């Protein structure tokens, strides 16, 4: 998690760099157009956003969970507060699609058929993305997978609590729907089988991954018959629902994500004592920070600066591991500090199982003894990294088999790269072309727009350490729709076009632009840019006011600066005139649909922040009416009556009684403040006169008033005023005399109570 950054910024103008592509997209190994799909999310167009993602990435749901998101490291929003949570947005899209039960579908990129036959060995991310790409342009692809399920390391290497299996199933099913044939349980493990593929297909793509775990290479390793566990087997067995704990006290060696995954899986299998041994310090550990923190929270111990030197074995059974303390030396060629042994620092860790997770290499047995493919010193296939071609014609390779353990997104990139080369190879085109150079310094432009407000990135909620200890349920929950839209709005849309919409502002053909931006009047609040929104709004509200309802005189208005978007008005308004809408920059405020508003004013009384103003019956006017009424009463015991103007005691005459009526549209409009202020100004009592419940002109205003006035009663009682000084009456339209009688009663009652003992300083 990035720290909260308080960098200096100019207050008047905000500098944005325009570069050939957005920095996030440049950094993405797939070149995904992040700005485009994030903008679509901000506009609420989720399915279209997902289509943009799928143009370059067949696994949005998977990458939305496990991608190391190098894009976020480049996000320019970090200069203001924090990077956009791009990875969480991608996941949101996939989850959204799944929750709508929409099956993911790819568009074919052309109508070609039978362009050629390609064999892919291995149904992991590299193999499947290569297959998907080829299938979309008309190739017949056959994928051969040794395991009983597709997905490669995504299926049997990443535990379910990070990547639930149904996500994988859906995304692979979409690739199969393109016509890709996946043959499971087919091992290409002999030279004869491999050679047959080379003969029968136009091209072969090797994406077998690297499953052979590296050995510890320490004394004792050969003697162990029980207790030396191979991590690929462990994770695979768990993925295939064969769950047996490897021991009661388990040591994992390594510092990568695999080591952390193994430790957390072992913990979930029921082992209480799990320890990771890593030869460098926390700083150098390649595992993701949050995964590491989560693991430690679950109770996994990490023994830094330690390296195994010998396994302690008794009759073939592992009894422990002897380790040596390490210290950090100079940086090595990889840029990490070298781990050097500390003299005389040996110590034992007792354990009954050890899992080395220090890297993998390629299983090459299928190539046979006499193959001519180049293999590197690290036991990986050697290819031309620009084309993924091996030294043998028609054979391509990519993914972990070439790079060693790497991320899903890198494997997908390799798959796509290989697919493009395969197409050129089969078409007989030269497939080596110069790499495209991206210019990052195209221009710099200063735009006079205010800098965005500080708004920290959205955080996904997650299961607590206790809840997840013995469960393989997914730990992180995705963003909600509201969170996703707000998060996407944080994006500053860096890139060649700033989408600042200045052009819309200066162009007198605004409607054309608004329409071109795909914004109908109804969608006015969903557009990606403020000015487009403003322009659209102009068109909506230019109607003739005089044609609106008679009651429109009393409709309410929202002060958007005061509104907190708490939604209480939306809850209370039965006319659905109030709706909380998203205004951009993480701000939600209520919006009044004036056509729906009937002007009862009930929402005014419920609003906690004073953001709603009722036309005509403003707070100021009511205040003034109260003052005037009290002045006219001229009694020692003046009474203020707030009454509904529709159906309550319409023929009431005060006839000299010190009790005058202030008519409002509905008693629901009377706020607690109005009543308390009447007392403050010297009223001895307050009457609220509403219509009978079933006679309420607005249907719900009267009930809302009852609810609201309960609070005021409680307050009066706490203050010691006696709640009886406030009475709520229900009187029908004809009940003028009835009210007069009640007022007389009430006056007698409060005269008995006496003055409110105030110093009248108020």
């Amino acid at each position, binding site marked *: 998690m990035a720290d909260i950054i308080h960098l200096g910024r100019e207050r008047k103008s905000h500098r944005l760099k325009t570069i050939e592509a957005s920095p996030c997209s440049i950094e993405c190994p797939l070149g995904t157009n992040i700005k485009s799909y994030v903008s679509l999310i901000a506009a609420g167009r989720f399915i279209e956003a997902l289509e943009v993602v799928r143009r370059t990435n067949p696994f949005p749901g998977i990458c939305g969970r496990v991608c190391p998101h190098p894009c976020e490291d480049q996000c320019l929003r970090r200069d203001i507060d924090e990077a956009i949570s791009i990875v969480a947005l991608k996941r949101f899209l996939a989850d959204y699609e799944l929750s709508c039960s929409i099956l993911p579908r790819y568009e074919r990129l052309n109508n070609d058929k039978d362009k050629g036959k390609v064999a892919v060995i291995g149904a992991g991310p590299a193999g499947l993305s290569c297959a998907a790409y080829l299938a979309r342009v008309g190739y017949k692809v056959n994928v051969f997978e040794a395991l009983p399920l597709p997905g490669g390391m995504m299926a049997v290497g990443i535990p379910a609590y990070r990547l639930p299996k149904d996500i994988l199933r859906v995304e692979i099913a979409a690739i199969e729907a393109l016509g890709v044939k996946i043959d499971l349980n087919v091992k290409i493990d002999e030279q004869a089988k491999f050679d047959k593929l080379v003969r029968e297909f136009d091209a072969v793509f090797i994406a077998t991954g690297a499953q052979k775990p590296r050995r510890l290479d320490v004394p004792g390793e050969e003697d162990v018959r029980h207790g030396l566990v191979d991590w690929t087997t462990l994770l695979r067995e768990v993925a295939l629902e064969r769950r047996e704990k490897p021991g009661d006290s388990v040591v994992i060696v390594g510092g990568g994500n695999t080591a952390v995954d193994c430790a957390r899986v072992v913990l979930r299998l029921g082992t209480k004592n799990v320890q990771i041994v890593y030869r460098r310090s926390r700083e150098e550990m390649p595992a993701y920070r949050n995964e590491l923190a989560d693991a430690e929270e679950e109770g996994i111990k990490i023994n830094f600066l330690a390296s195994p030197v010998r396994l302690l074995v008794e009759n073939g059974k592992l009894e422990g591991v002897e380790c040596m303390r390490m210290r950090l030396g100079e940086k090595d060629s990889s840029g990490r500090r070298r781990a050097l042994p500390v003299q005389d620092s040996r110590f034992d860790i007792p354990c009954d199982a050890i899992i080395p997770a220090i890297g993998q290499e390629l299983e090459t047995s299928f190539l046979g003894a006499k193959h001519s493919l180049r293999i590197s010193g690290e036991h990986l296939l050697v290819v031309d990294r620009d084309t993924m071609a091996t030294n043998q014609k028609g054979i391509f390779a990519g993914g972990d088999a070439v790079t060693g353990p790497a991320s899903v997104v890198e494997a997908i990139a390799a798959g796509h790269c290989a697919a493009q080369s395969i197409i050129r190879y089969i078409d007989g085109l030269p497939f080596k072309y110069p790499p495209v150079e991206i210019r990052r310094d195209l221009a710099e432009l200063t735009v006079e727009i205010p800098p965005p407000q500080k708004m920290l990135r959205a955080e996904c909620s997650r299961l607590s350490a206790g809840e997840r200890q013995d469960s393989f349920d997914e730990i992180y929950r995705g963003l909600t729709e509201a969170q996703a839209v707000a998060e996407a709005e944080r994006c500053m849309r860096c890139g060649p076009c700033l989408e600042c919409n200045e052009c819309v502002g200066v162009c007198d053909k605004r409607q054309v632009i608004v329409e071109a931006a795909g914004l109908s009047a109804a969608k006015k609040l969903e557009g990606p840019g403020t000015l487009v929104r403003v322009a659209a709004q102009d068109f909506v509200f230019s109607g003739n006011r005089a044609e609106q309802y008679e009651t429109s005189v009393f409709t309410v208005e929202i002060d958007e600066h005061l509104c907190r978007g708490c939604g209480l008005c939306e809850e209370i308004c039965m006319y659905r005139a109030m709706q909380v809408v998203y205004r951009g920059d993480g701000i939600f405020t209520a919006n009044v649909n004036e056509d729906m508003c009937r002007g009862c004013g009930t929402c005014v009384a419920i609003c906690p922040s004073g953001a709603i103003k009722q036309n005509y019956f403003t707070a100021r006017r009511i205040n003034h009416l109260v003052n005037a009424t009290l002045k006219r009463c001229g009694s020692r015991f003046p009474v203020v009556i707030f009454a509904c103007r529709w159906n309550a005691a319409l023929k009431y005459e005060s006839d000299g009684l010190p009790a005058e009526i202030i008519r409002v549209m509905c008693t629901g409009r009377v706020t*607690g403040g109005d009543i308390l202020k009447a007392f403050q100004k010297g009223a001895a009592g307050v009457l609220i006169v509403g219509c009978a419940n079933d006679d309420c002109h607005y249907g719900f205003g009267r009930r809302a008033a009852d609810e609201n006035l309960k609070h005021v009663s409680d307050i009066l009682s706490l203050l010691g005023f006696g709640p009886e000084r406030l009475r709520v009456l229900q009187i029908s339209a004809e009940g003028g005399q009835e009210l007069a009688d009640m007022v007389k009663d009430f006056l007698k009652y409060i005269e008995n109570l006496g003055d409110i003992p105030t*110093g009248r300083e108020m």
Partner: protein
Amino acid sequence: MIEIDKLVEQYNILDVGEHAEKLNETCPVAGVNLEFSPEKIAMLAKKDPGALVESPLIWECLACGLCRQVTEQRVDMSLFIRNVREQASNSGFHGTETHGGMLITTQRLSAFTSANPRRTGWINEALKVESGKGKYLYWVGGAPFFDAVMPELKPAALDSARAAILLLNKLGVRPVVLENERFSGHDLLWTGDTKGFRSLADQNMLAIKNSGAKVLIVSSPEDYYTLAKSYAEYSGGLDCEICHITEFVANHLSELKFSEYRQRVTYHDPCRLGRGMGVYDAPREILRAIPGVELVEMKNTRDYSSCCGTSCWTNCNRYSKLIQINRLREAASVGAEALVTTCWECAIHFNCATRPEAWRQVFMDVSDLTVLAASLLQG
């Protein structure tokens, strides 16, 4: 009425210029409201004091005291604002009252009525309290009123007051709870109603004196600050020891035993308790004493703690909400499962920021330390 330029000098407001960049960046309001900055207030105070008094800027300021912290105790923006608001209020300029003015009007009524408050109805049989006289006095503050106006927001202020008494009982203390306690006057003082504040202070000081209390234990940080500092500033102060409930409990931790509670929490320092009264450690000591609780710190913590976004039931708006959401996200970003605070009002504000459910921006439990501690008491 004191002239604005004298106030400017007294509180070193012109020094804002020298620290402008840093102040504008740390100010929680300036971060979310681009129309606002401490620098703007300082400029206006210098160029056009009359306009400052009428300006909404003085009501947008949270008076959270962070300016003082950032400038090494030089620029006292919060006291400056308090004094300017007094002038504004006298000239008829006010902030926007929340809840239709219900809570602030209640306090004005409380200041000028001699009606006898009836505010101890919430004390149930499980709580042991004294009425009348005693060595210890527990100050309830506005809790019964807050709960009456916002019964839907949890944790409820009265739950916290009940929890405080439970903790005190457990330590063998039966505190006096005054039936005629009034609002402390914090909100009136900080919205410019000095007359109302003085009236409340006089009545409260008399009531406390009559109770014979030697130790006054307070839950609300705002009340604690007011009773301890503002009363001293206006009327010479109270003749007894005043402490916050967390200080009292932290001093007697060895006598309390808590059940295990597995949660990773972060602690939000309320402005008046932290920067106001310098109480940072007591709440943390209590949290550390609860087995299973893991305390993580946010980036802006202790004397640099961010404000909860609004105070005095005035000017609570979209910017307040952004501040609150940012604070809750800050808690989430350090992996906390709950944000714990000792201020009812902070808790109310944070909880309000998560509404409405359909547009929820952040998921973070907000808990009250006193309620948490009391609910885990053993034996």
